[in-house]
C-alpha cells in the first residue's frame, strides 16, 4: 500500500512494516498505526511516521547510542499488554525533541516506545527506573550519569 509521509513524500509500505500501538502515543490516542523510516539502515536516528495522518511524525533515537547502560524496567501490566514475559524480549526507542540549538536537543528516557518485534505491537511505557524525562542527546560533560 502507498502512504503519504511528512518527510519522505509518498512511499509504499508492506502490511508487515506497520507497527500497531496499544493505547497510542500519549496525547495522540487517535492514531495507532505507524511505520519506522530511516535515511540509511545504520542510522541511530529514525522517524516514527503515522500511517493514518501524514502530518504526524516523531523523531526516534536508539537509546543505546546515547546511554549504553539503558536497562528498562516495565510495570507487569505493560509486559502483558505487549505479550512478553521479560523486558529483554522488547526493543526500545526513545522520542526526541530536536532543537535548533543542539545542546537543547533531548530524548525522553523515562517513557520509551517499547516494541514487540514479533507481533509488531508497541506501546509508550512509563518506566519504573528513575531515568530522566529530558536527557541531552549531546552530553555537555563527558561521562554524565543518570
Amino acid at each position, binding site marked *: 500500500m502507498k502512504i503519504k509521509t511528512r518527510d519522505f513524500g509518498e512511499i509504499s509500505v508492506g502490511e508487515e512494516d506497520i507497527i500497531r500501538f496499544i493505547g497510542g502515543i*500519549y496525547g495522540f490516542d487517535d492514531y495507532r498505526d505507524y511505520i519506522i523510516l530511516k535515511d540509511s539502515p545504520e542510522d541511530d*536516528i529514525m522517524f516514527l511516521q503515522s500511517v493514518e495522518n501524514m502530518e504526524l511524525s516523531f523523531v526516534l533515537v536508539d537509546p543505546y*547510542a546515547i546511554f549504553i547502560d539503558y536497562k528498562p524496567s516495565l510495570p507487569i501490566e505493560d509486559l502483558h499488554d505487549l505479550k512478553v514475559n521479560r523486558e529483554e524480549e522488547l526493543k526500545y526507542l526513545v522520542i*526526541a525533541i*530536536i532543537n535548533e540549538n543542539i545542546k537543547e536537543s533531548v530524548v525522553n528516557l523515562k517513557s520509551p516506545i517499547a516494541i514487540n518485534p514479533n507481533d509488531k505491537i508497541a506501546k*509508550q511505557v512509563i518506566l519504573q527506573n528513575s531515568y530522566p524525562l529530558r536527557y541531552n542527546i549531546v552530553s555537555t560533560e563527558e561521562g554524565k550519569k543518570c
Partner: protein
Amino acid sequence: MLVIKRKVSESILIGDDIEIIISEIDQDKVKIAIDAPLEIKITRKELAETYEFNKIASEKINKTSLSDVKNKLKGSKKEK
C-alpha cells in the same frame, strides 16, 4: 516547600476536601491513597510531562538541526 513526616495510615489534608493517606511503605516505594472531589485532576507527574514532551516532539523539525544531531551521534560512536 513544606515537608512533613508521616507514618503508615497517617494522612494529611489539603484544604477542606483533599486527603492524602500513606497506605503502604516498602523500601523505596510508597503507596498513597488520595481522597479528593471528582473535579480535581490527579496525574502522575511523569505522565503529564510525557504528554507535554510528545506534543513538542511532534512539531515539524528543522532538517539541518537533525543532521547536526545525527553527525554528533556518529562522531561519539567512533570515539568508543
